[in-house]
């Protein structure tokens, strides 16, 4: 039994190692590909927005119909793993916005389902301790292979002739990705077949608080990523080297951080989360571009702790929330954060005096949510945090119901007015014809 778990963990880590290179060579260079074929910010946002919406819809569908995940698990896992990678063979062959949006949406949809299946495999097969271990090792492995992948990507971009550049790079990425698919074939996921999922959630307020915290945290991370690099380059006049170093140092720090934070308690991870909120303030106030490399190390290191907090909390809720719903909810949270951050990023744009305080406020909100409303992490007594959490959940539920009711009424009223307009238009048409005939 133990050797089976050991084998599963190693396969998952190796898969992440290969997937890191694949992701760097495909999704990592996708923005450059879009820019190279003449896309502006609006076009890129459109493509990303459509793709995020489609993957969110897919994840929402899976949450409503979780039975899809628990039958023929291995076949579906393999199929979606392979499909996701195969999509990249087609991506460089199209140039039109609609086709690119279609293929990228397809990729995101496959990616969402695959993310759910991989989380389901991890959450459904391992104990909380093993989940912590494998999550940390996968993050570290992905970080290492990301660096290698980006180095390979830069090399290929520099040396392959222009017209075949992206066909070659994306195809190479897909092939490497398909090797990781081959690894997945060795996974034994028979225990997940017909896995049970609770019809009713025992403590919905806990899931709600954690999800709310996680969305806020990921949103702040995404927003920070959108504004930081342009700020260093445009405002502080940092060189390209510094901009590239920001990403590299961040990835290196996250590799080390994954191994450092994996065994730590929630109370310790809380410290990382609190320190992470300082990141945007430091980035905004420190005027020396070189110092931002250090800030990047600091924020990546602390962000890994905050991120692990959310992931590990779901690992703990696994027992009563079920692996199926945990996995789907985590993918929904990721997609939602991406969906909200894209338009927000566009909105704040290059107004850095607004952007950095916004990111700081979001990070502080995430910290406040964690330390006030999540019993496992709270600085207040557990029962007090549970009460706060319940109050927030109930209020949000009431608010949600009101919003749904009002939206429903508005949509119905619009539809009714539209229908009435159609009838009146038909009447006008009839009498216009009659008028035209008799006059």
């Amino acid at each position: 039994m133990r050797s089976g778990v050991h084998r599963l963990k190693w396969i998952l880590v190796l898969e992440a190692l290969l997937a890191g290179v694949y992701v760097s060579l495909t999704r990592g260079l996708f923005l450059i590909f879009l820019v190279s074929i003449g896309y502006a910010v609006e076009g890129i946002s459109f493509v990303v927005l459509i793709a995020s919406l489609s993957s969110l819809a897919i994840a929402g569908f899976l949450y409503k119909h979780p039975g899809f995940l628990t039958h023929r698990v291995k076949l579906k896992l393999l199929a979606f793993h392979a499909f996701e990678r195969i999509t990249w063979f087609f991506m460089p062959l199209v140039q039109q916005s609609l086709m690119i949006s279609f293929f990228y949406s397809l990729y995101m949809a496959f990616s969402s389902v695959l993310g759910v299946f991989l989380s389901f495999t991890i959450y459904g097969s391992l104990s909380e301790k093993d989940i912590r271990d494998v999550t940390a090792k996968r993050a570290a492995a992905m970080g290492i292979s990301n660096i290698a992948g980006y180095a390979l990507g830069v090399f290929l971009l520099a040396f392959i002739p222009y017209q075949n550049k992206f066909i070659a790079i994306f195809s190479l990425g897909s092939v490497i990705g398909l090797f990781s698919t081959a690894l997945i074939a060795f996974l034994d996921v028979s225990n997940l077949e017909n896995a049970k999922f609770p019809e009713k959630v025992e403590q919905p307020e806990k899931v709600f608080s954690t999800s709310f915290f996680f969305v806020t945290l990921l949103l702040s991370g995404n927003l920070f990523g959108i504004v930081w690099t342009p700020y260093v380059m445009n405002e502080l006049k940092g060189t390209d080297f510094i901009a590239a170093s920001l990403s590299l140092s961040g990835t290196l720090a996250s590799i080390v951080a994954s191994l450092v934070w994996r065994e730590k308690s929630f109370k310790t991870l809380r410290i990382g989360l609190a320190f992470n909120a300082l990141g945007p303030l430091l980035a905004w106030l420190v005027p020396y571009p070189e110092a931002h490399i250090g800030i990047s190390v600091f924020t990546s290191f602390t962000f890994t702790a905050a991120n692990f907090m959310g992931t590990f909390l779901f690992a703990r809720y696994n027992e009563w929330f079920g692996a199926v719903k945990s996995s789907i909810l985590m993918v929904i949270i990721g997609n939602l954060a991406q969906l909200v951050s894209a338009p927000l990023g566009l909105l704040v744009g290059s107004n850095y005096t607004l952007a950095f305080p916004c990111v700081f406020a979001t990070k502080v909100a995430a910290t406040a949510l964690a330390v006030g409303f999540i019993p496992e992490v709270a600085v207040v007594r557990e029962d007090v945090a549970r009460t706060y959490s319940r109050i927030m959940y109930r209020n949000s539920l009431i608010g949600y119901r009101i919003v749904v009711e009002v939206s429903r009424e508005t949509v119905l009223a619009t539809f009714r007015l539209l229908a009435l307009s159609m009838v009146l238009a038909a009447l006008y048409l009839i009498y216009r014809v009659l008028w035209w005939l008799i006059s």
Partner: protein
Amino acid sequence: MMDEELLETFRKILTQIASETVRLIPKIFIALVVVLLTVAVIKILNFAIRKIFKVVRLDEAFEKLSRISLPFSLSKAIVWIADLGIALISFYSLVNLFLGAQYTHLFAEAVYYGARLLSIVALTIVIFALFNSVIEKMKVETRLKGYMFFILLFLVTAMLIDVTALSDPLKSSLTMGLSIGVGISVGVFAVWFFFHEYLDKWLKRVEQQKT
């Protein structure tokens, strides 16, 4: 000799009838198609409009928004108006087909006249609906209700005079008379409405002085 002439006349009449019938057959056929099409369009339109109104719930929404209850169903009235429009188009086609362009002018005049009549009916309905709603809201006493009804009847009569076949001078003198009557009536009412307390006191004083 006489028999032959009679036969010849009959033959001519029959030939004429036959030739007219033969000439009419394509027109009859086209008219049938027009009628069938009209029926089909009316059926489809009614079905579609009724389905739409089932969703829209027009009567309910109208009553809720305006707080006026109409004596008829608004959605049925719209269906009826649509049907009437289709029927008129169809009828115009038939008139044009059988009677020719000179009769379409008559048809147009009939439609104008019908439209005037309908507008009077619609206006009367609207006025009475408003009247009802005002009475319900203001809780008017019976005498005042009677007075308002009386004025409304005068107004409707004036509108009806406009569409009658009376001569223009008679129409104008009747309308003038009605207008003067309505004006005086409203004036007297206004005097009573604003000064009735004063008038009551004055009358009482006059009676007391007499006695």
